[in-house]
């Protein structure tokens, strides 16, 4: 009854791939956190007046065409981010829309653009490293010269950010890259640069997080200072005007500009900095008066799905150990079972 024994051996070899996972070293891949010098944005919905200057500036900075959704085709009117719109201000409406930033009978704004995740799904998904995370400033960068257009990044992103240009036979993926092409001239993200109220603020994510927490700790209605444009770290603020000439790049590499900080009243915040912990944290952070889920920000766990996915892959394929072991077993079994009668020696019917 050798066939029964062979069957069992085969069963062992064949199921090795499935059960073997438990017996080899499980290399769990932790969720990544933001790099120390991560750059990002802080969007404070309570400061946003919905002027959409950031949308126009984004189009111009990224050389994107207008998109029309009205009959007259007069204005750039995108309804969502697209392959040609990397930033959009959306509006929340409820009931009579009387009060700004109120969930009931109110209205509110929310910015939609790339969150620059600490552990981006798009980067994990991309098979050809066209989507990468800059190891220093953490910007999630796109390289069209490598991109094969498979749109796995589009499917993977929980925020629906990478978008493909379906209308173009040479279409690419479009998404916010924090205006990294403007950085070398000392310019930062165009959306933050033009924001009149400082609702969108550019800076180091760590500084932005501290600023967000400062605002959450304040009593609604009290008066406080709101910076505009670029959030300067405390060290830089002390040096302001001492070592930098006007219009020159300062020692941090950013073009010097006058301090535009102003005084305003503190909004009624939901006590949550969106992006502090979601998916291991994002470099773009958000404050809102309306529950985040209602303004289109998904409820995400503190661990990333990239980590889950890569843990599975590394467990099964880490160092190719398991595939090689299974292949060895399969080869051994197959060698015994491939019978010489597979040879056609003496078989009729060959000369057709």
């Amino acid at each position, binding site marked *: 009854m050798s066939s029964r024994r062979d069957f069992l051996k085969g069963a062992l070899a064949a199921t090795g791939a499935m059960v073997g996972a438990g017996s080899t070293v499980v290399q769990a891949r932790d969720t990544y956190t933001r790099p120390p010098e991560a750059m990002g944005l802080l969007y404070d919905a309570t400061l946003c007046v919905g002027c959409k200057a950031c949308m126009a500036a984004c189009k111009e900075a990224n050389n994107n065409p207008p998109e029309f959704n009205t009959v007259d085709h007069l204005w750039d009117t995108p309804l969502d981010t697209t392959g040609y719109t990397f930033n959009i201000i959306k509006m929340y409406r409820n009931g009579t829309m009387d009060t700004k930033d109120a969930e009931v009978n109110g209205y509110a704004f929310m910015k939609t653009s790339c969150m620059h995740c600490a552990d981006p799904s798009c980067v994990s998904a991309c098979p050809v490293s066209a989507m990468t995370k800059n190891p220093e400033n953490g910007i999630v960068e796109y390289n069209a010269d490598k991109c094969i257009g498979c749109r796995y990044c589009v499917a993977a992103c929980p925020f629906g950010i990478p978008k493909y240009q379906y209308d173009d036979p040479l279409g690419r993926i479009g998404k916010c890259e924090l205006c990294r092409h403007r950085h070398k001239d000392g310019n930062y993200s165009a959306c933050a640069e033009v924001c009149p109220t400082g609702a969108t603020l550019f800076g180091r994510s760590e500084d932005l997080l501290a600023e967000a927490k400062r605002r959450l700790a304040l009593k609604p209605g009290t008066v406080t200072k709101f910076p505009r444009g670029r959030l300067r770290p405390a060290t830089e603020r002390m040096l302001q005007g001492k070592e930098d000439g006007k219009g020159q790049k300062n020692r941090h590499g950013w073009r010097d500009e006058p301090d535009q900080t102003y005084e305003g009243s503190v909004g009624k915040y939901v006590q949550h900095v969106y992006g502090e912990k979601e998916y291991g944290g994002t470099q773009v952070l958000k404050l809102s008066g309306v529950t985040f889920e209602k303004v289109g920000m998904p409820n995400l766990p503190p661990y990333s799905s990239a980590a889950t996915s890569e843990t599975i892959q590394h467990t099964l394929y880490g160092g190719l150990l398991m595939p090689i072991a299974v292949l060895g077993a*399969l080869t051994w079994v197959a060698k015994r079972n491939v019978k010489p009668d597979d040879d056609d020696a003496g078989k009729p019917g060959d000369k057709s």
Partner: protein
Amino acid sequence: MSAQHHAVPEPVGGPLLNKVTFIAGTLVAIMAAILLYRFIFGLGAVTNLSDGYPWGIWIVVDVMIGSAFACGGFSVAMLVYIFNKGEYHPLVRPALLASLLGYTLAGAGVIFDLGRWWNVWNMYWPWSVNPNSVMFEVAICITLYIVVMWIEFAPVFLEKLGLKDMKRKLNKFLFIVIALGTLLPMMHQSSLGTLWVVLGTQVHPLWQTPLIPALFLLSAIIMGYAVVLFESCIASSAYRRSIEVSLLNPMARIMLGVVAAYLAVRLGDVIFRGVIGRSFALSLEGLMFWLEMACFIAPFFLIGREVQRRNPARLFVAGILLMLGGSLLRLNGFLIGYDTGAGFSYFPSLSEILVTAGMFATEVFVYVIVTRRFPVLPREAPAH
């Protein structure tokens, strides 16, 4: 070694142009025209794809389901060479041919869907690849497997061409090719499921599970056997040959064993993760989940008993149900249970459907031509 005295494969013969090849050929021509248009004017010109549904039926049906349908070669070769069930040998070649065609087309289908296909070499360029990407692993494995299958199938062409010497040489290391041909589909069929793990909460919890690679692998093996049942019945009726019930009956029993294992993992998983309740909600997802499950459960009632398995009609229907069940698992996770938020919907365009039809037609077209001219199907016993 009496089990090894099985029927020798032989060309079926007959005309190449007939009703089936004519219809299939027409569908292939329509597909070619649509694809030409697609490559000139872009994906948006022919598909209903959007950023909410970046993958449509070209990926989910042509590649995901198409390659699972093409697992017959893998499932049967595993039975014959790994589990040493030599008696199933006559089933190997026809199954392998269907697999070869299915996978080659799935590979081509990926190219049709790639938005920047001219960059595809980056997938194999060491300075570009991202080993963390599930898709990278899938792509490499499928590419290798297509090569391996052509080598596995090469004896058919060598026989036809009378190159016995070369065939004998190939046979000496065929066992390595067969081992690889078993390992590679295990790797990428499971990873095709892992593809949706990174999609996270966008995939409905009834399908989003870390056990998805095991479910995809088991269901691919099941679909492989189911396709063999389906194909054997179709080929027999089309070529007016007797059905190999003596082989299909015990193979179907083995298949049911795998289905039982699949159901245990599937149900155990949704119960253990505490999401089984979501399936009872009055929703499309809940309905689709049970429809999917029904396709896997019904075969036990159809062909659970020995007598039932002797009935070709029952084998045929059970095969179709299991093919459908595995297809639903893939369709449900990638399209029906996938939600990127409000404002997006997807139903394939006519062009998308015609291309998918053209892909399957290509398979039929080539299958008919190869089986009529090359030694693939077992020779009919002269007693008939």
